[in-house]
């Protein structure tokens, strides 16, 4: 078994492992501002992609100025897509899954592509989107094409930062709007919260919501997620040998 490893920016959310590390090396970066897309290798950093896009008045809707939690613990493009972390602009611009248009992935030892490098396409199954948020268990990502946004979106967002991370643990909770106040009252050591996307970042493990998810030092956990069977079916179909953890 192997594990995909990027820059390690989200290592605090992964179980310790002695598995062989697979480190994506693709650092290609191509901005096409007139087409509102950017194509980047998995090893390109979020800072690099933002800098390249900013020169043409565009960006990915990730705020790097609000600290690690609200920036989604930015590391590389591969990590951004593989973890689909919440961030300060989630409620307005969605999660990385909504920006991904095309991907090249390693599928059973071969490079394969899904999606199209245009802002809209419904050709075939959106297989690439299965890799978004998969935390690497279906195999590594080689390149990603995103849709881009005007640079001015980076001044938006209503997320509130209460205190800085100072080496403590980080837990992330997202729940339904109807349960947010209760969750906020019970949360301890809150670093930040974003009311519109119903997300709380805290130092202590939050209480499990009736519907929603928690990300913490040992990975992630959904409450009452009904599609576990389908997830297992997908993992088996895409990684029958159990090569990727």
């Amino acid at each position: 078994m192997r594990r995909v490893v990027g820059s390690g920016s989200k290592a605090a959310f992964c179980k310790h492992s002695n598995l062989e590390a697979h480190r994506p090396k693709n650092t290609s970066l191509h901005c096409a501002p007139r087409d509102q897309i950017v194509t980047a290798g998995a090893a390109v950093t979020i800072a690099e992609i933002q800098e390249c896009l900013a020169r043409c008045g565009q960006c990915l809707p990730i705020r790097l100025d609000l600290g690690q939690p609200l920036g989604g613990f930015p590391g590389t493009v591969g990590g951004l897509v593989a973890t689909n972390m919440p961030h300060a602009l989630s409620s307005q611009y969605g999660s990385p899954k909504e920006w991904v248009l095309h991907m090249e992935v390693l599928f059973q030892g071969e490079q394969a592509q899904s999606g199209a490098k245009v802002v809209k396409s419904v050709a075939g199954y959106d297989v690439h989107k299965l890799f978004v948020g998969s935390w690497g268990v279906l195999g590594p990502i080689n390149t990603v094409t995103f849709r881009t946004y005007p640079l001015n979106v980076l001044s938006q967002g209503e997320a509130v930062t209460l205190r800085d991370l100072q080496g403590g643990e980080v837990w992330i909770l997202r729940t339904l709007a109807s349960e947010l106040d209760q969750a906020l009252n019970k949360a301890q050591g809150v670093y930040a919260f974003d009311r519109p996307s119903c997300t709380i970042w805290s130092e202590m493990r939050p209480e499990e919501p009736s519907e929603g998810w928690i990300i913490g030092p040992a990975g992630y956990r959904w409450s009452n997620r009904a599609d576990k069977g389908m997830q297992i079916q997908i993992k088996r179909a895409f990684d029958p040998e159990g090569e990727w953890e």
Partner: protein
Amino acid sequence: MRGVLGNDQVRDGTAVERVYACDSYSIERHEPECVVFPRNTYETQLAVQRCIEIDVPFTARGAGTGLSGGVTAVKGGVIVSTKRMNQILEVDPVNRCTLVQAGVVNQKVNNAVKPFGLMFAPDPSSQTVCTIGGNINENSGGPHTLKYGVTADHVLQATLVDSRAQVIVAGSRVSGGPGIDPLSLVVGSEGTLGIVTEAWLRLVPMPERIETALIAFSTIRSAVDAVVEVMARGVIPAALEMMDKHVLSAVEKAFGLDYPKGSEALLLIECDGRSQQAESEIRSAIEACLDCGATNVETAGNEEDRKRLWTARKKGIGAMGRLAPTIVTHDGVIPRSRLPEMLEFVYAIAEENSLGVANIFHAGDGNLHPCFYFDEREPGTVERVLAAGEAVLDKCVELGGSVTGEHGIGLEKIDSWSKSLSANDLRLQTTVREAFDVSGLCNPCKVIPNQKGCVEHRRRWSGAAT
């Protein structure tokens, strides 16, 4: 089927077979053996169970507005109509979502949530009749997807009956976040992975203000340049649509409307959001158009004006009935910057094949809809239409785009799409199909040829058509 669902929920006979032989892609027809009308997930499960027992294919169908033959029963069998699954089960304004059955009409969802100041954003042109089940399966778009995104961005959870007659649920009311997301596969699967029976939809607040402008250009080139320029100025309009002079002449004839003389193309631009934002965005967009040589700008002062400005776009395709007896609407996507080149190609290919062509499309998304108009009674015309359509799709791929932005692969585009895939890309796609369509009975021969018989079937049809 009658034993399982009761007489009232099963229809057969010549009239039914004819009505259900195709969707809005009417070039290819296949008659089903019967049509069933389950009222809920359980009855759908019973119907699918029966199909498996007797080894008969089944195909889900909503309103039949699809444009790529996605609900045509290629191998006969049973059509499972969702038309009686037409209940809105819950509206949850606090969590901004609603639970609906698959056969609910898109517009009815919007009517039901409007009192809460909310809307279901995907707005395909057929929204007054098309169903949510169809929208999910086709990952439908519409004029406002430029800003709001396609159906995939607005479905939270779907319940489906899979090809083994099991009820499965994909997704969650809490969106985003970690884990493999099976819902990504279900949305846009064209009914090949199961029959969607219910879904939780995401609702968004209705915009505070909508600003609409209709802008005329004396050349196609300047209109297309303006599309790119508007977006380059940091504006993402809610809608950015283009109509050429052929559409305008049809609309003028049909509705007695006047458009500025000498206009080769019109852009319809809509900006929405908070008042100040909508106003400043439409101002920037209009300035961009004027800098690109716009000859006339008309803005909407009220809702009535707005509706009038939208007439050409909303009713353009219908009005084309004035130009010729038959219309075939194509669907392809190209990178926006290649629009000028692509449009020149479309006009040239129409001329080469002696066909009329009108363009009415989502310019902001680079999503073209060339409409070829012709008289199919003239010998050889259908062949020329097919040849022109294929050339247009090949050009989309050549320019780095996609063979479909909204209409789906269905039956229509299996060949043109698979041409653009490598062996590995195709294997990625078939892995999905094989993992979920275990019985092979679920809407066979769509998206990818999944059975031996499909290839034979394609040969037969291609032979007949060309």
